[in-house]
């Protein structure tokens, strides 16, 4: 009994032998098979894998949007999910999008405006409260989406390739901001990407995902001091090893099938 309690205090997120399959073109497509992983409270873990490896499926299950076929996924506390697209509600302003998240969390009307302003300040969008999404650049929209996720006051933030569609400079800056916000807030973050460098840049640990069926093939603990530079040789070495591992997995998958 006490053992279970200790576990639940340490882990913010645990996935146990999770399997997900669904019918596709008359066949049963196994998206995830026997995925087991744990993320500690306050940890930033990256999952890196090729596209179609079931990474997004895993996040959708963790966010409660899909039900797994077998196994268990458990998240302690509230979950927020960020997508590759900002997915802001286009009829609401930047502040309005955040205020809606606050409203759905049950925050009083009188507090929402100030809190939204504060959250936009945290992602460096002061003065953009009244902009509509289509009046913002891709990077700014993703900042608003980050602020909206923070507005949910979640314990766990799931990020599904959130910076995948951005240019290198904008992405670099958002890495810095995400790292700063993560350090300040003590959030637990599970960050999905197909970019090994990005994974090593951000993660305490990097889980390498194999495809078809999706599963954790390999785990790398990143010991590099923060803040890390995407261009540092040490980072490149680790990322290179991860990329090699991904290639091995892809070759095996091609030969296997």
């Amino acid at each position, binding site marked *: 009994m006490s053992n279970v309690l200790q576990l639940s205090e340490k882990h913010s997120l645990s996935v146990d032998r999770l399997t997900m399959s669904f019918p596709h073109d008359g066949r049963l497509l196994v998206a995830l098979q026997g995925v087991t992983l744990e993320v500690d409270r306050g940890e930033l873990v990256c999952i890196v894998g090729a596209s179609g490896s079931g990474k997004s499926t895993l996040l959708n299950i963790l*966010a*409660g*949007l899909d039900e797994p076929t077998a196994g268990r996924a458990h998240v302690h506390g509230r*979950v*927020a*999910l960020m*997508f590759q*697209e900002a*997915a802001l*509600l*286009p*009829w609401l302003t930047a502040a309005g999008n955040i205020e*809606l*998240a606050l*409203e*759905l*969390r049950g925050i009083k009307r009188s507090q929402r405006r100030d809190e939204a302003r504060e959250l936009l300040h945290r992602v*460096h*969008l*002061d003065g*953009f409260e009244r*902009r*509509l*999404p*289509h*009046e*913002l*650049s891709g990077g*700014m929209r993703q900042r608003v989406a980050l602020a*909206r996720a923070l507005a*949910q006051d979640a314990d766990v933030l799931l990020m599904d390739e959130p910076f995948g569609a951005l240019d290198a400079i904008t992405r670099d*800056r958002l890495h*810095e901001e995400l790292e700063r916000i993560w350090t300040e807030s003590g959030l637990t973050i599970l960050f999905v990407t197909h970019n090994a460098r990005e994974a090593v840049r951000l993660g305490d640990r990097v889980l390498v995902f194999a495809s078809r069926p999706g599963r954790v093939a390999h785990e790398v603990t990143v010991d590099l001091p923060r803040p890390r530079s995407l261009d540092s040789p040490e980072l490149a070495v680790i990322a290179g090893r991860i990329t090699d591992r991904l290639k091995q997995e892809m070759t095996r998958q091609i030969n296997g099938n």
Partner: protein
Amino acid sequence: MATELAAGVASREVVETTEPRPGRLPLLRAWSWLWPKLAAIALVLAAWQATVWSGWQPDYVLPGPAPVFQRLAQDLRDSNFDLGIAITMRRAFSGYAIAVAIGSVAGILIARIVVLRRAIGSAIFGLQSMPSIVWFPVAWLLFGINEKAVFFVVILGAAPSIAGGLLSGVDHVQPLLIRVGRVMGARGIGLYRHVILPAALPSFVGGLKQGWAFAWRSLMAGEIILGFASRQFGIGQQIQVARDFADMEQLLAIIVVIFVIGVVIDSMFGALDRVIRRRWGLLGADA
């Protein structure tokens, strides 16, 4: 440092997107909007006048634009004529309002309830293409020849378009937005209120506009058929009276009025549509 840089980049992006286009004076823009319309009107009037002058029909059968517009000016000073417009507009607005209420409620119910959707979902779209005039014989027998019959046909003409606009709006909400709403904790009614209905609004306005067009057509047909049966004399009834007296000037003057009302209301819907599309980011910033 990084922060300052971020703010610098951000503000420049915004300046680019919000700066008005140079060199387009408001007066010039109004003129470029207006002149094609004036030219079209002038062309129609010229063709009309040319037909009259060709001597194809005697001018008591086909009067020219000048006597028709003189008659119109005279009509508009006549309080009975203005009362007729008022009666017609009252019928139009109240019938349309009921159609909007029924169409919206039906649209939401069909969208929400799977069984209802399977039962009558496709019937809604079928009803939209029903010529509303075929309902008049039904309405006659149900209500007699009176205002109730006209309302019946107006509502039956407009409500399916309104329900259909709402329904297709709800059906075509981006799945990603629904997922976002669910991740934020919106469920059931909350999801409708905060995500689905606002996302469906542009399509709903399209349905409102089409519904108005059907209501207006049905009302005119209804008033023509109503004739002397109602002592509340709308402009549709006055058309019928003008025909009975072979008063072509009067007839054409009324048609001009009906046309102008149609154009005015349609442009109001057009403006509403543009406001919403701009807000929803479905239009370019300068469109």
